[in-house]
């Protein structure tokens, strides 16, 4: 193994944001914002340079720290997955930085303000940690990167200093720390067994034996706690809903991707032959449960930000559906194929769409002073660009042509067909309909006309609306970018206007509308009010009762004792599932 040309760029990608943090801290005042914007420009350039190097060389970009090769030294390695994630994260950070200029600008009469100062530094810190996650070549550097990411993400939750958000931040921190200590325990066991933590070397040495099963179970569970996969999602809804809009965008779109990427590295690169089909099915099963419960509880929410937070819980479930679909029965191992491409595309499109959604929710807050879904009438007339952003990002999450999620769904469906796992195809379709449900719910309420024209409580800067809309458009047009990089995937959507595709899209939308009217709580139509008579009333009564059951189950699972016990149960289940027959 040798340092390849352009390897130094990997170091710059990781160091650049942290140099920005230090510079901002030292310069103080209103300089963090300027430093952050400068770093965004430089960082995008570095990400593009790394992508160019990788494309021209055709092999992973490697950098050996100090010139020492593993197992003595540490290697930074960027393959196709890393390059794709780094590019997308750079774009999302740029969008959030532009949006946050209005929210987190230091007031002109103050030399330095606490929340803006902290926000800009934390934004850069999150970005630097994520780049480190993507380029790390060994498990311990990944642990450090993961902890950096948590420390940078937690204060974003409580930027406004209220007691409720401080509680949410503490809960997040403690649960994330439990997750990372389990990950470290797994890494320690792997070192004890094989004498190295380098990913490439471990991949050669790892065998299916008890120490690897234990390590895999512990590390996976720890990472799932940090990614908030069902049933370990107790911290996510209050944390993401309580943070300011730009911070929620960072948390939902960026921070959860870090630990998810680590699960990917662990399962696909370190132990592809050791993980068994039952363990992959377990991971996919937890994802499916997340999709169902997250979406139905999202429909019950009265507040827009909580709805979007629960939709994140559901979308995180989507990210784990690719694991059982990537399992190749012949070689009894996970392979890099359609399913992996679909999962990556899903993650990338979720990052852009979710950031845009949270930004739009922040703008809605500015207009109304609240975000109660049932009282958002007149939004389409007052802030049409914002409602358009909500619609576009909702469509992008749903998986309709030509969004990235559509191509991702097609790739996953073809993988399901290829491996004869029809149940995941069913989960994908149901998930699409459920996602459509809450998008329809939000749009019904915002497209309603209000009797009195709505005047914004705080003026909404055009720049913020454009930033949010730009990110939502990115998500929608992602399919074209993907086809540009991997032309083979063009076959999958070569005719999006074919009758079969249109029929499928219409079925999804129709099912979503039915679900919205059935399960959504904040509906403005008369027959949806509680206590209405007739058939519609009684059906509605029944569906609301079902929704309430889901909500109470979710509430029970999000209690500290239950969730932390679930940590141990999930770890035990993974360990048992990994034991080779």
């Amino acid at each position: 193994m040798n340092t390849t040309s352009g390897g130094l760029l990997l170091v710059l990608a990781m160091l650049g944001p942290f140099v920005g943090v230090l510079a901002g801290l030292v310069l103080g005042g209103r300089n963090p914002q300027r430093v952050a914007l400068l770093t965004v420009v430089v960082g995008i350039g570095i990400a593009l340079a790394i992508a160019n190097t990788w494309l021209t060389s055709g092999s992973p970009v490697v950098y050996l720290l100090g010139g020492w090769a593993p197992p003595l030294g540490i290697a930074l390695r960027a393959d196709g997955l890393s390059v794709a994630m780094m590019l997308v994260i750079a774009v999302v950070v740029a969008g959030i930085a532009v949006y946050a200029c209005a929210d987190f600008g230091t007031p002109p009469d103050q030399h330095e303000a606490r929340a803006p100062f902290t926000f800009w530094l934390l934004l850069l810190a999150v970005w630097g940690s994520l780049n480190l996650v993507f380029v790390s070549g060994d498990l311990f550097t990944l642990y450090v990167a993961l902890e950096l990411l948590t420390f940078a993400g937690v204060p974003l939750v409580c930027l406004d200093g209220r007691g409720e958000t401080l509680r949410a931040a503490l809960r997040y921190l403690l649960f994330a720390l439990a997750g990372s200590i389990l990950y470290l325990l797994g890494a320690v066991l792997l070192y004890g067994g094989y004498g190295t933590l380098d990913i490439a070397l471990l991949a050669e040495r790892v065998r299916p034996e008890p120490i690897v099963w234990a390590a895999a179970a512990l590390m996976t569970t720890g990472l799932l706690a940090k990614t908030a996969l069902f049933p370990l999602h107790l911290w996510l809804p209050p944390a993401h809903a309580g943070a300011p809009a730009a911070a929620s965008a960072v948390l939902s779109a960026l921070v959860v991707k870090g630990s998810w990427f680590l699960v990917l590295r662990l399962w696909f690169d370190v132990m592809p032959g050791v993980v068994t089909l039952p363990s992959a099915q377990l991971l996919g099963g937890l994802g499916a449960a997340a999709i169902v419960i997250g979406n139905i509880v999202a429909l019950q929410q009265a507040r827009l930000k909580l709805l979007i937070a629960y939709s994140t819980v559901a979308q995180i479930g989507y990210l784990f559906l690719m694991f059982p679909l990537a399992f190749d029965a012949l070689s009894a191992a996970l392979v890099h194929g359609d399913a992996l491409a679909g999962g990556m595309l899903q993650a990338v499109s979720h990052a852009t769409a979710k950031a845009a959604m949270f930004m739009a929710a922040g703008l809605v807050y500015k207009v109304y002073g609240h975000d109660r879904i049932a009282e958002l009438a007149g939004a389409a007339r007052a802030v049409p660009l914002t409602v358009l952003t909500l619609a576009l990002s909702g469509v992008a999450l749903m998986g309709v042509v030509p969004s990235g999620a559509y191509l991702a769904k097609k790739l996953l469906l073809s993988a399901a067909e290829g491996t004869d796992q029809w149940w995941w195809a069913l989960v994908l379709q149901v998930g699409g309909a459920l996602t459509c449900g809450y998008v329809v719910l939000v749009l019904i309420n915002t497209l309603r006309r209000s009797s009195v024209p709505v005047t914004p409580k705080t003026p909404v800067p055009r720049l913020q609306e454009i930033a949010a809309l730009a990110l939502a458009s990115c998500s929608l047009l992602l399919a074209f970018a993907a086809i540009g990089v991997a032309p083979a995937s063009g076959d999958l959507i070569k005719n999006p206007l074919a009758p079969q595709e249109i029929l499928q899209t219409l079925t999804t939308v129709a099912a979503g509308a039915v679900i919205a009217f059935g399960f959504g709580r904040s509906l403005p139509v008369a027959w949806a009010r509680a206590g209405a008579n007739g058939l519609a009333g009684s059906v509605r009564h029944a569906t609301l009762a079902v929704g309430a059951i889901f909500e109470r189950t979710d509430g029970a699972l999000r209690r500290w004792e239950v969730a932390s016990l679930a940590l141990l149960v999930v770890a035990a289940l993974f360990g048992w599932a990994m034991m080779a027959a």
Partner: protein
Amino acid sequence: MMSAPTLLGICAAVLIGCGMYGFIVNPQTLRKILAFNVVGSGVFLLFGAIARRGAGAGFGGDPVPQALLITGIVVAFSATALAVALLVRLHDVAGSVSLASDPPSEPESDAGST
């Protein structure tokens, strides 16, 4: 007769178990933070035992785990510092430090306050 690394490994397992028990069961936040530190100590002790077991070439212990261990201690220490800082701030703002959820309230504005 049990060798030293094995005995230390068993101690580490006991520490991790006690720590996880405290982490799950204790409702007080400060005790959860302490429990996390106990689990951390167990993991680091295990790493040290592995270093001792992997000793060779005249060294007392494998140096790589010792280096990683020190990094881990620093990370756990910073984590504890952040958690305690949040706890102190929560006490200043809210008076109590319980993590029990309060009913969701709606803030006045969505942007960060200064």
